[in-house]
């Protein structure tokens, strides 16, 4: 579906079901340099299980018009604007990696509209290695290789995916390769400079789920202690054998965990 925010076109998929803003809504927010298609199974599942789904392409990503936002605050302001435009009142947000920061930042602002937040592959502060940042800023393919090499868990690097014939490491690479020049660098930089994680967490009143990958080498689960301390109402679930791309590596387990949380 297409809509407009600040005069720029925004694309989101609805998981194959009708958009109905009177229903409880789940907004999915992808991570740095990615797009909505990382959530294809989860979006389809919840769209057919009692929710309206807004599976977003952030500005400058996928089919949404650019440019990408330069900071997490800007992404979050844009998201709040979109929620107004779509006239959504009962919203839950599922964010992955950079998307989890956008969810944290927005959760603090949305107050009564927000019902639940799920943070996947998250840290209160996502620091990016300077070499990776430089390489992404310069549009080097090596940046994609580092993201796939570190982001896709070691188990998924061998495979055995539940979706028949699906090669996750390859699909992750192709997705990054379709990102517009500079977008990955922009996003990693936005993560790197955002300091508001713990403060936002302290302002969030709704229930929050931290869904973490046991083998996540980009946002290791052990780094979330401060975050869970700052949140008023949170639970943490660690997916066995999953890396940073848990929703594509283990779509089924991700659906089951989210489904329990949203029930």
């Amino acid at each position, binding site marked *: 579906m297409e809509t407009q925010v600040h005069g720029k076109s925004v694309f989101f998929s609805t998981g194959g079901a009708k958009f109905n803003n009177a229903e409880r809504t789940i907004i999915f927010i992808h991570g740095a340099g990615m797009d909505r298609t990382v959530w294809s199974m989860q979006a389809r599942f919840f769209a057919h299980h009692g929710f309206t789904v807004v599976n977003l392409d952030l500005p400058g990503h996928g089919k949404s018009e650019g440019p990408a936002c330069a900071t997490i605050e800007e992404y979050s302001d844009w998201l709040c604007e979109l929620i107004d435009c779509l006239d959504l009142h009962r919203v839950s947000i599922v964010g992955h990696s950079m998307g989890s920061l956008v969810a944290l930042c927005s959760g603090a602002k949305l107050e009564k509209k927000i019902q639940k937040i799920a943070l996947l592959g998250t840290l209160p502060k996502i620091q990016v290695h300077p070499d990776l940042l430089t390489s992404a800023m310069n549009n080097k393919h090596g940046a994609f290789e580092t993201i796939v090499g570190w982001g896709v868990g070691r188990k998924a690097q061998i495979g055995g995916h539940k979706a028949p014939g699906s090669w996750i490491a*390859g699909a992750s690479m192709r997705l990054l390769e379709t990102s517009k020049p500079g977008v990955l660098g922009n996003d990693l930089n936005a993560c790197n400079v955002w300091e508001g994680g713990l403060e936002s967490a302290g302002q969030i009143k709704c229930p929050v789920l931290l869904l973490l990958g046991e083998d996540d080498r980009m946002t290791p689960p052990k780094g979330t202690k401060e975050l869970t301390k700052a949140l008023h109402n949170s639970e943490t679930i660690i997916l066995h054998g999953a890396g940073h791309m848990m929703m594509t590596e283990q779509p089924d387990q991700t659906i089951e965990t989210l489904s329990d949380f949203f029930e």
Partner: protein
Amino acid sequence: MTSMGNIFEFDTLSLHAGQSPDSENGSRAVPIYQTTSYVFKGVDHAASMFNLERPGHIYSRISNPTTAVLEERISALEGGVGAVATASGHAALVLGILTIMGQGGHIVASSALYGGTHNLFSHTLPRFGITTTKVDPRDVDGFRSAIKPETRLVFGETIGNPGLEVLNIPAIATVAHEAGLPLMLDSTFATPHLCKPFDHGADLIVHSATKWLGGHGVAIGGLLVDGGKFDWENSGLFPTLTEPYDGYHGLDFVEEFGPQAFIMRARAEGLRDFGACMSPTTAFHILQGIETLPLRMEKHVRNAREIAEFLGGSDAVEWVVYPELDDHPDKALASELLPKGAGSMIAFGIKGGREAGKTFIERLQVWSHLANVGDAKSLVIHPASTTHQQMDADTMKKAGLSEDLVRLSVGLENIDDLKADLKQALRAATIRKVV
């Protein structure tokens, strides 16, 4: 780390990709799931799987756990995003074509094709309204000028069959992409060990897994691999991928699955409806082959190089075609696209033409006379009387064939035994002729 960001290298992936040892029994080998169907966890779980909301197996025409390991493994080795295994190489080719076009579609193809592919393109697909224009594989501009408004695919073989033309993949990919078209390659003769066409611009790959991937000559199978790079939406020529599909509750494949749109449609529609699936036992056999692919291909190439040299020095031989030889027009291209070796197929002309060819083949002992290639055992055939017998002399010439042509698929036997056998049969064929 590979250029695909994988932390494991090719030979490791050949042995492991796609399989996590089963959690129940820890079976190290890939188990053969010889089953047609799978017990659902519940009504809702079943509905979700049918609706592509949750992953898993429903019915073995559409997917099977053993076959899925093979599909993932070839995707990993080719550097793609996913694959579908089929009943034969031909089934993979047909599935690939029918996923992106129907009535009125047009293909621009290299003229150096496997005889079966030639039949499909020239005689069978036209019955369903799909036509093909053939172009000399070395004529890059010819590909460009053969493209029409209704063209939906550019097709070729990485190493041509049986002329061993090396396709200029980067140049032809550029021609295809400039016209908003995908390039599909039959990479059977190269295997991903020798060439990874996605790295050079190809978009889709088909394999006859019957050949070197299996290597043992015990199972017929095919693979269709999606590179995930082609921008179907931007091209605007492929409604099967970019518009809602009534056959799947209005599913728009690109919208939902992004880089995996093509391969999802190929399975969800093509395997479901055309039904040319691979059996789990076949998948097991092909997997057994792929485990040793790098080792086998190294020896295939080593033996092929020696045989090519041996034939070049034989008085009974008129000419030899192998892409690494100095007089081969694609030598430079071969060293660029096939740096580890130009495969293990060799063609040569025997002195004395058709008659000498027959005697030669009948005298061979170690080399098997049969209609296949890519076996661990060395094979030989005389195309004029077998694979290409349905072609008239003119068409044969266009496909780079002549009546004296003998085609070898060099196997893994001891090189001295292979040479000695060729030597005695060549001598017998030549002496007969003199007498």
